[in-house]
């Protein structure tokens, strides 16, 4: 039943990608990219209970590493993706060692600080990153099949495939013994430790994996835009990603995907009327926390259940 719904939704998306005017198709691609990112953030925030305010660092790392690889080394998607994801995993492995020495609000602050370092490097290392001009002229990736990604709508299908792959991998991780252990750690780390779990190691692996997913989102992002600027590694992007998870529903498997589409759509609509996007984000955050603290996916599910019971 649920599988049919998901399959129907994906099929509808795929058709929409072909039929939609380019502007709206572009919106959906943005949604797909940030859905991958939000899935990654959710592994840490929703499933492990560690709120990071610096995940744009891994998103940016993925984008820059893949972009630089595409410009200087190889146009192959696989090599670019390996560089982007590898770079994000490595950065996550280093930052995780530092960040996991803290907990609670201190974890929030240190991930924010570490994220700002990544942003500052992207901003000031002009010779490599292009500084605030950004990295320009990233070519479309080569998948080894000629002509596959020539037009914009074709990239839509590619982004959809990437998002599905990331979603399936994340669903498998959540169902695995490791995924279950994260939920236990979220709820009661002391008990997990007493049961014999190496709690720190589980948190650390979740941190690094979460960085890897975020980096993959950055890879799909940079190939799509052909361009990346330090903004991609900024606090605004970190906060948006966190909000996508909270709006969609932390600790649900696919809530972050829904949240990503809501935030992306909203940001495009709002930007047509006002520059006060952060203000709108803040209000949205307050509304969600007050009205649907478990996220809109849980809220919708509850409504559907209630209707079914009646």
């Amino acid at each position, binding site marked *: 039943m649920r599988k049919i719904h998901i399959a129907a939704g994906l099929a509808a998306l795929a058709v929409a990608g072909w039929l939609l005017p380019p502007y709206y198709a572009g919106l959906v691609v943005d949604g797909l990219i940030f859905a991958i990112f939000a899935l990654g953030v959710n592994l840490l925030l929703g499933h492990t209970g560690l709120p990071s305010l610096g995940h744009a660092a891994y998103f940016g790392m993925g984008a820059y590493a893949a972009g630089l690889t595409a410009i200087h080394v190889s146009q192959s998607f696989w090599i670019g993706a390996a560089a982007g994801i590898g770079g994000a995993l490595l950065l996550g492995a280093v930052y995780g060692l530092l960040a996991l020495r803290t907990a609670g609000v201190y974890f929030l602050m240190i991930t924010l600080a570490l994220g700002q370092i990544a942003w500052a490097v992207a901003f000031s290392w002009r010779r490599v990153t292009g500084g605030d001009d950004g990295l320009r002229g990233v070519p479309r990736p080569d998948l080894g099949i000629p002509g596959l990604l020539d037009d914009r709508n074709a990239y839509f299908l590619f982004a959809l495939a990437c998002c599905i792959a990331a979603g399936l991998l994340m669903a498998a*991780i959540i169902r*695995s*013994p490791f995924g*279950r252990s994260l939920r236990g750690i979220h709820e009661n780390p002391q008990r*997990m*430790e*007493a*049961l014999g779990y190496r709690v720190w190691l589980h948190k650390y*692996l979740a941190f690094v994996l979460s960085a890897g997913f975020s980096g993959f989102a950055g890879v799909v992002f940079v190939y799509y835009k052909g361009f990346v600027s330090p903004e991609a590694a900024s606090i605004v992007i970190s906060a948006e990603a966190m909000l996508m998870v909270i709006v969609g529903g932390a600790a649900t498997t696919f809530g972050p995907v829904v949240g990503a589409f809501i935030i992306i759509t909203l940001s495009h609509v709002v930007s047509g009327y006002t520059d006060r996007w952060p203000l709108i984000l803040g209000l949205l955050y307050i509304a969600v926390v007050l009205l649907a603290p478990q996220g809109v996916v849980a809220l919708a599910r509850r409504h559907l259940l209630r209707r079914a019971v009646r």
Partner: protein
Amino acid sequence: MTALRVEDAVMQFGGLRAVDGVSLTVATGERRVLLGPNGAGKSTLFAMIGGQLKPTAGRIALFDTDVTRLSPHGRARAGLARTFQITSLFPTLTVADNIHLAVQAHAPGTLDMLRPAEGRREVMARIATLLADWRLAGTRDSIVGDLSYGEQRKLEIAMALAHRPRLLLLDEPTQGLSAAETENVVALIRDLPRDITVVAIEHDMDVAFGIADRFTILHQGRVLTEGSPDEIRGNAEIQAIYFGEEH
């Protein structure tokens, strides 16, 4: 072989010595009950044995291996399991999921990330056995936070036994239980196989005498005396300090 050896353990919190030079030896298979008024240092001593607290001084050995510097999960791997004075579970998960976490902690593949957790037959079989043994099968899909306090205490002991520990620490296992629930839990503890050593903190005298082979009496962070149930019953000093307050 000794299951547990505590040597001159000291726990200092600022100006307070909660545990002040406690030594204790528990033989394999023994049922030891720690008695003592509130503030005697019983739960602090448990936290030192479990690894939740690092002793200020002294040494702790499990099964003749020094574990003083070992983390709680390392001690769990050495065969230790414990319950807490304040019930410590996963309240938003179901009973079966709580037991699942306890069982898979020691099953191979805890870090397996790609195969479903329900796919491992020996883990699922062990969960079913524990649910049946502890008469929790009827509540297997209930959310733990919704259970009665008595059922939560029972679940906590069942989880502590999930990986067949060799030493089980029970911190007031029957606290807050009804008379019927208490009887039930005492019977379950009595029925534990003798290859499991049990050390329990217990305030209820009927329960304490119901399970103990030997007693250790703590008072103000020190061991006052140690002895068999008969010796403890007949000891006037203990009567005055401890039982005097209650009876």
